[in-house]
């Protein structure tokens, strides 16, 4: 996986000490404005119009990978982290970029248990029984 800082944009030097490699992919960012919306089980869905992502030079291979993975079936943030073998924090930042670029959208976070509709809970029970 090419996790290098893009181009020659080496903002750190040896005095900076060890750099967390995965976060190089986020150009050092550890958070993103949309992060608060990204639960581990929030689903990332590629926008239908996100076709020509290759042409967008600002996207890293990891960005493009996420766009492709979420095109046919939505993937949770946790699944993306496992699939890309990246820390969740990194995936959050990358997904945040894609949300900003309107290449993907993210499903609403799940409400706490006490706010989940009772009919959904019944569906879960029936679904489990039918497995």
């Amino acid at each position: 996986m090419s996790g290098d800082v893009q181009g020659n944009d080496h903002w750190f030097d040896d005095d900076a000490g060890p750099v967390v490699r995965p976060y190089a992919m986020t150009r050092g960012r550890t958070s993103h404005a949309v992060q608060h919306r990204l639960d581990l089980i929030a689903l990332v869905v590629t926008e239908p119009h996100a076709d020509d992502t290759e042409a967008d030079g600002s996207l890293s291979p990891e960005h493009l990978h996420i766009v492709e993975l979420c095109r046919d079936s939505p993937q949770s943030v946790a699944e993306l982290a496992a699939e890309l073998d990246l820390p969740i924090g990194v995936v959050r930042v990358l997904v945040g970029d894609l949300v900003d670029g309107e290449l993907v959208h993210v499903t609403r976070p799940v409400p706490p248990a006490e706010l989940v509709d009772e009919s959904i809970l019944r569906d879960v029970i029936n679904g489990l029984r039918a497995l």
Partner: protein
Amino acid sequence: MILGRSERGKPPVEPVTLKILVAGGFGVGKTTCVGAVSEIRPLRTEEVLTEAGRPVDDTRGVESKHTTTVAMDFGRITLREDLVLYLFGTPGQHRFWFLWDELASGALGAVVLVDTRRLEDCFAAVDYFERRSIPFVVAVNCFEGAARHPAEDVRQALDLDPDVPVVLCDARERESVKEVLVTVVRHAMTYAADRDRSVTT
């Protein structure tokens, strides 16, 4: 647009996602439990923690190590095309408990997996869910060869509230784990109903 179809074919269904946590001490069978019902091999996701995230750690002798990786195993059960349940095994080490807060937020409920030979390993998990009012059930993993204790003994030993379900299970058996999960969801329903009642009265 007719029936919301895009040029690339049918747009993907966006399911409702729910999660249940599987907690318990190290080696109690959390990953086995997740794997028994998951449609995918349990996946592992990692979070890299920086120094700021773990201020109490002693890093003497490992000065160059500025990060720690915490692994969480999880599985997926597609109940319907539009309804997906995720199971998350919580990180066992106590010092990663702040990660639990994130895992627990929005969780439907939790399973505390218990090995009666090491009952004390689950105390912390029970405390955690009690304090945060997260509905949980205690599932006693009946290891082969382990002395079996009646559920009531376990309840007393853990000093559980009477409404907390205690069930015996075999974390390797799909049917058994399914039943545990059904118990969690049922308990979550009752829990929610009780809470509504207490709010309105």
